[in-house]
């Protein structure tokens, strides 16, 4: 338990880290206990209560279909966190594997993979998302595929660069001279030394992923209605922004708080555990 407690104490010592941790815990708490925190069904249409401003009954008001915005915000958090965690984890695994192969494999394979990564990265994110959604149709899966396609090349490149640097380090050469096979070298000597910084960098990408999900849902290319998503709420609010600004505010505030929370937490994590990465 003390092992777990020490890093948390270190984070709490930094004001920004404490704020970030608080926001992140708040969002996760809201998503997990959404059903306990509100009695409204986020998808239930209630034409009589359309466009109601914030009140004691509806903490954040209602939207154009009379759905309770607070309930939608809480349930939207589930979608956002699910996409962020699952696709980031998948990207990490894929990126690490590809990066290790590119960095430690033969030169031609490395060159080929670098070319593929660079080509993938040369699509502007939204353009890639638009092209994919045109084919696959809007869905949560499409969002996750976009996230993976967008983030994997970057992770793989980082791992590759580090692997190449370590491949020529004296301790890896020493392991080779002792007769260690590539699998052992990757597992024992390279992976433990490259994975830490990448996990921190990936944790700092969580807000970016949340932004992609919200952005795609905002464009109507992500989560299908009536599933609540912060992005689609923002779109609902944007449509009627001149008259009922609270809908846009209700959709935007959770995005801002969540991305800020994860960013502040990630920054602090990095500064505390791996100061060398600063400024990346």
């Amino acid at each position: 338990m003390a092992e777990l407690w020490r890093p948390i104490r270190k984070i709490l010592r930094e004001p920004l880290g404490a704020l970030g941790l608080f926001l992140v815990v708040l969002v996760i708490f809201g998503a997990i206990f959404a059903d306990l925190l509100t009695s409204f069904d986020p998808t239930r249409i209630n034409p009589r209560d359309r466009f109601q401003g914030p009140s004691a009954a509806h903490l954040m008001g209602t939207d154009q279909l009379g759905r309770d915005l607070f309930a939608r915000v809480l349930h939207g958090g589930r979608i956002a966190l699910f996409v962020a965690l699952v696709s980031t984890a998948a990207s990490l695994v894929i990126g690490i594997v590809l990066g290790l192969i590119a960095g430690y494999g033969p030169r031609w394979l490395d060159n080929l993979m670098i070319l593929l990564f660079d080509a993938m990265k040369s699509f502007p994110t939204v353009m890639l998302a638009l092209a994919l959604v045109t084919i696959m149709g809007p869905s949560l899966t499409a969002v996750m595929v976009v996230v993976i396609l967008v983030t994997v090349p970057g992770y793989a490149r980082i791992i590759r660069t580090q692997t190449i640097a370590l491949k020529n380090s004296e301790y890896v050469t020493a392991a080779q001279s002792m007769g260690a096979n590539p699998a052992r070298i990757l597992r024992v000597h390279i992976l433990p030394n490259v994975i830490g910084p990448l996990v921190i960098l990936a944790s700092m990408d969580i807000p970016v992923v949340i932004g992609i999900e919200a952005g795609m849902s905002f464009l109507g290319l992500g989560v299908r209605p009536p599933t609540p998503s912060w992005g689609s709420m923002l779109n609902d609010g944007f449509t009627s922004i001149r008259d009922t600004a609270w809908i846009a505010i209700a959709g935007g505030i959770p995005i801002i708080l969540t991305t800020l929370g994860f960013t502040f937490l990630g920054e602090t994590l990095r500064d505390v555990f791996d100061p060398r990465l600063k400024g990346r």
Partner: protein
Amino acid sequence: MSDDPILTVRDVQVSFPVGGLRKRDAILGVAGVSFDVRRGETFALVGESGSGKTTLARAVNGLQAISNGEITFEGQRIDGLDRKSMKPVRKRMSMMFQDPVGSLSPRMTVGDLVTEPFRIHGIEGRNLRDEAARLLSLVGLPTDFVSRFPHQLSGGQARRVGVARAIALDPALIIADEPTAGLDVSVQGEVLNLLNDLRERLGLAMMIITHNLHVVHHVADRTAVMYLGRFVEAGDTEEVFGAPRHPYTAALLSANPEPDPDKTHDRITLPAEVPSLLARPPGCEFHTRCPWAQPACSAKAPTPTQEGTRAVACHFPLEPGARPPTQSESAA
């Protein structure tokens, strides 16, 4: 020590491709080198940066493919072996690398580091904890060091861990690349004494690669001097140091200032800089910097000539105590 060679190197060349798309251009990092290392002896390779000494050591250890020549270790050809066939050889030949701390995997404990050879070679039936303790005591480190990490060690301690790892599998040959690099003078001696001691106790042969001539003098039985990837002079250490026959050896020896203020230095100053491997000078490759160079030197490359235990690659080998002819002019 016996005359029976444990390692035989013949005409070994190592080439590196240069240039981007046209891969035909290549430079020779090692340009045809032959030597033996005998059982139980210490053989030293001496040279300045870029002389190819580290490349040669890596080639012997199979970390660097050779483009020509033969390497025989304990009666077996080992050049060109793939990783699997090379693996048994690696039990018998271990290598130590320059950076004492940097050659230790940063996230492994000392205990794991020194016993890694056992795990790599799947040697069962030994209690690795006991082995770690045995190895650490062999190199004079307290056994409670097993749980330390490399960054918690001083340079000298890290070097000892490297030595312990190198002797773990009772090899017949240890290749040590700059074993005293990065160590303070007061610690250098400890490491050299340890290597000497272990060599005698375990009957090892050693190949030491270094730029530090004073170190060589005390530890090596035989010495070879490298310049631009070739041996310019090789022979018994005492003889080479007592009366260098090649001008480069002489210059190298005189370039080592001795810690004695009363010593008068009549130094052989080498004009010009080391030529690039991309543009090797014609004839004798040392003639651009040699104070004794004559017209013949730039015309034809010298072939190494054997005199007793010594081989010299020079058209005009030096007589003992020779002074450069026109030193003041050539230095200007």
